[in-house]
């Protein structure tokens, strides 16, 4: 592999977005830039940002206004579970054709909305604008207004034209739509010890795990946004006393807005790894000093969970100690938790990157990481593969698009994207995470990979 080190180079325009942590490194990592044309970014678009945030609201109608592609690639895309309705697991599209593009799609959108609302009786409808809607100039706000008046349910335009910014702008558009639902419900039975869980999408049932922890502490969870989401719950969210925000990239704008509009303070948390999970519980307990029993219960909960967890991690930690990990995730917050979780397993992080991290995120990463760790913003397959090879990575943590490049190079993989089927959040999630990492890293199949095959070559025919 040594020859590769010389041949894989990073595009000039991208160099400022890659940095190796060193003793006394000062410079900052460039980020929040428009992806370089032709760089093969792993990012998606504005539409994707909106779609993933709102997708888990299970009793709402989600219709994508545009040609069929955007709708079909987001059909049942996330493992966001619902305890009840599953309307969100369908893919509805206006499926614009050539004539619609020429003459406009407003009429078709209206027809489609009325058909769906009359048939499925959703609690609300989200209308996602795709690229060409912005170009052909359909007035989707007007259509939504009229259909809302006709049907009596909220019909909310989501301005998610793919080219109008980045995924983060899509998050903002989704939060705008959510903020129009919040404040419309009855809050009379909301407890003084209540929270909203923001930025938790119930992948593999994770929101249920987190919700259960808070409920064990005696806290009322008014809404989760948006995992296992329901329009009625979201409409009452302004009654909660605290917003607990995970996945800060997607939901901070909503949290700020709720602070301005309703005076609800917010804290940032992460539910990955023992340390961050425990902190997420203690920080919430801290917020309710009038009820010290909440903190007592939090302590008991953490003690119980951790004392069961640590012995189970121990044998895996022994196998994984010293192995090198690379992390490339969508939002940077996950990277912080993953670094801590990997350290608990005595693993070494040699690459940490994200699609949408901000300056503070990367500053925090730089402080957290050991010298020699590469930090990268908005990376692409060439760069990620370069560092897999150069750093001798044993485990890659990423999503669907990163998985095959790891496997091609004989590297174990942990799926930490929205398609995962195994809960990685919460204390039980730490155990699942360790198991997932352990089974991939220690799999016997790697000995046949070319990377390790030299040791096996004696047996080859």
């Amino acid at each position: 592999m040594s020859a590769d080190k010389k041949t894989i180079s990073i595009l000039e325009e991208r160099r400022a977005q890659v940095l190796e942590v060193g003793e006394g490194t000062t410079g900052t990592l460039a980020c929040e830039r428009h992806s370089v044309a032709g760089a093969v970014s792993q990012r998606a678009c504005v539409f994707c940002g909106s779609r993933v945030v709102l997708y888990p609201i299970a009793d709402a109608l989600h219709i994508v206004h545009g040609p069929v592609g955007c709708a079909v690639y987001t059909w049942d895309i996330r493992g966001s579970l619902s305890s009840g309705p599953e309307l969100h697991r369908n893919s509805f599209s206006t499926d614009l054709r050539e004539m619609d593009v020429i003459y406009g799609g407003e009429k078709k959108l209206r027809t489609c909305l009325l058909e769906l609302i009359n048939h499925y009786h959703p609690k609300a409808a989200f209308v996602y604008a795709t690229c060409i809607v912005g170009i052909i100039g359909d007035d989707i706000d007007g259509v939504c207004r009229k259909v809302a008046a006709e049907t009596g349910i909220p019909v909310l335009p989501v301005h998610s034209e793919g080219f109008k910014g980045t995924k983060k702008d899509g998050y903002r558009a989704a939060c705008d739509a959510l903020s129009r639902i919040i404040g419309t419900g009855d809050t009379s039975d909301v407890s003084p010890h209540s929270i909203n869980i923001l930025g938790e999408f119930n992948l593999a049932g994770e929101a249920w795990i987190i919700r259960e922890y808070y409920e064990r502490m005696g806290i009322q969870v008014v809404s989760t946004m948006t995992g296992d989401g329901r329009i009625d719950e979201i409409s009452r969210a302004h009654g909660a006393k605290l917003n607990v925000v995970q996945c800060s990239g997607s939901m901070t704008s909503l949290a700020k807005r709720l602070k301005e509009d309703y005076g609800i303070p917010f804290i940032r948390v992460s539910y990955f790894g023992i340390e961050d999970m425990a902190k997420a519980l203690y920080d919430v307990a801290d917020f309710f000093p009038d009820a010290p029993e909440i903190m007592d219960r939090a302590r008991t909960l953490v003690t119980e969970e951790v004392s069961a967890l640590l012995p189970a991690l121990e044998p895996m930690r022994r196998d994984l100690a010293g192995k090198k990990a690379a992390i490339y995730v969508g939002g940077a917050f996950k990277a912080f938790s993953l670094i801590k979780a990997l350290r608990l397993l005595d693993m070494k992080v040699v690459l940490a990157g994200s699609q949408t991290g901000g300056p503070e995120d990367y500053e925090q990463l730089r402080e957290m990481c050991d010298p020699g760790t590469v930090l990268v913003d908005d990376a692409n397959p060439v760069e990620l593969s370069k560092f897999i090879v150069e750093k001798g990575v044993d485990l890659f943590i990423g999503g669907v698009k990163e998985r095959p490049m790891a496997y091609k190079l004989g590297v174990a993989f942990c799926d930490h994207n929205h398609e995962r089927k195994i809960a990685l959040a919460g204390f039980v999630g730490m155990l699942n995470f360790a198991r997932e990492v352990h089974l991939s890293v220690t799999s016997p199949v790697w000995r046949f990979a070319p990377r390790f095959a030299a040791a096996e070559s004696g047996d080859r025919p």
Partner: protein
Amino acid sequence: MTTPAAAEILDRWTVTRNACKLCTPLGACLAFKGIEHCLAFLHGSQGCSTYIRRYMISHFKEPIDIACSNFSEHTAVFGGGVELHTGLDNIVRQYAPTVIGIMTTCLSETIGEDVGSLVKTYREARPELAAALVHVSTPSYRGTHAEGFHDAVLAMAEQLTEPGSRGHHLNLLAGMLSPADLRYLKELFADFGVEAILLPDYSDTLDGVPWDRYEAIPPGGTPLAAIRRMGSAQASLELGHILAGRERTAGKSLRDRCDVPLRSLGLPIGIAETDRFCRAIQEITGAALPARHEAERQRLIDAYADGHKYVSGKRAVVFGEEDFVCAMALFLREIGIIPVLVASGGRTGLLEAKLAELGGDSTVAGDVDFLTMADLAKSANADLVVGNSKGYKLSKELGLPLVRVGFPVHDRFGAARLLHVGYRGAQQLFDRIVNTIIAHAQESDEIGYTYI
């Protein structure tokens, strides 16, 4: 034949609910993955390339790099010429491709980008550029992934081939098959002793080997030099009954521009269609069917006899891309299964006429989505469902087993290795279908027979 009741169901909805089709650029990306050292480039938003990559990776389990020009608001207003050129420069630096396949998207088409002339300007500004550039118009609002695929193949035929003195090789324009299918076809031609240029050939790029070093573009694919020689072939074989009904195809372009005789055939799924395919090769080249393929054919006939009672008279819902469902419907009829509902999201309008012409009286539904298909299927009294994995919900709702074929297969392992074509492919399909029916009966039966 469409009954009045079916016609009423087909007319019921304007909205598309769970589409049974993909967008045009995806098909073009698939075609470009079959060219040696080629990189696909989408002129549009970042999301288009990322979604298509993710969708294809989930099926093929291979790295799939697709570049894009990444439109911004500024680009959408002022045009994407600069981004296209920057993007091409960057992929040349990062990937050093031999061929670049440039596609449009609904966005770049709607703002009226003239990609042909932008590419020409780029080529003129980079006289030192070694890569061949192919461009194809693929707006998502026109057609489906099948059109994108065939238009990309047509673009390659038109832009990369030239007439030449007649050689002994054949062109094989095989359509949207699996990597295993393409690998099988190459093996068949090798056994015939006939050189065939397969366009495209993603048998290695999308079902590849592990790497001992980083491969920016995985090895495999039709070499550019081979594509250039397609204009001097002895004949072209172009597969797909629906494709044959299109006004312009790669095979027709090679015929009209380079005088390469064209034979249009169906996808060789099942004995009858494979026989026609092999006979065409024999007629053109004079080569005899190789003994081991004849043996595979005989074993298949033997298996048809052994298994016929399990399938005879069974009723199937078949769906997917038009050419694929057309071939699959013919295969099912060949083994005694009635394809009661043949459905596709494709909208060439050719499927119904083609299946009627080929015999039988299935309900044929084009331009249909999965939920409408489910409404049609409820009264079809079917026994099984045959199609891609997106029909899982349909099969679950109907309580019927799903035999996964074609693209995409996102919920099972080994999609790239699914073999459909040739005697061998028919054998595998037959075995899978028979066993699916037996397993379904066994699971829904209290006795649980231990002999079939």
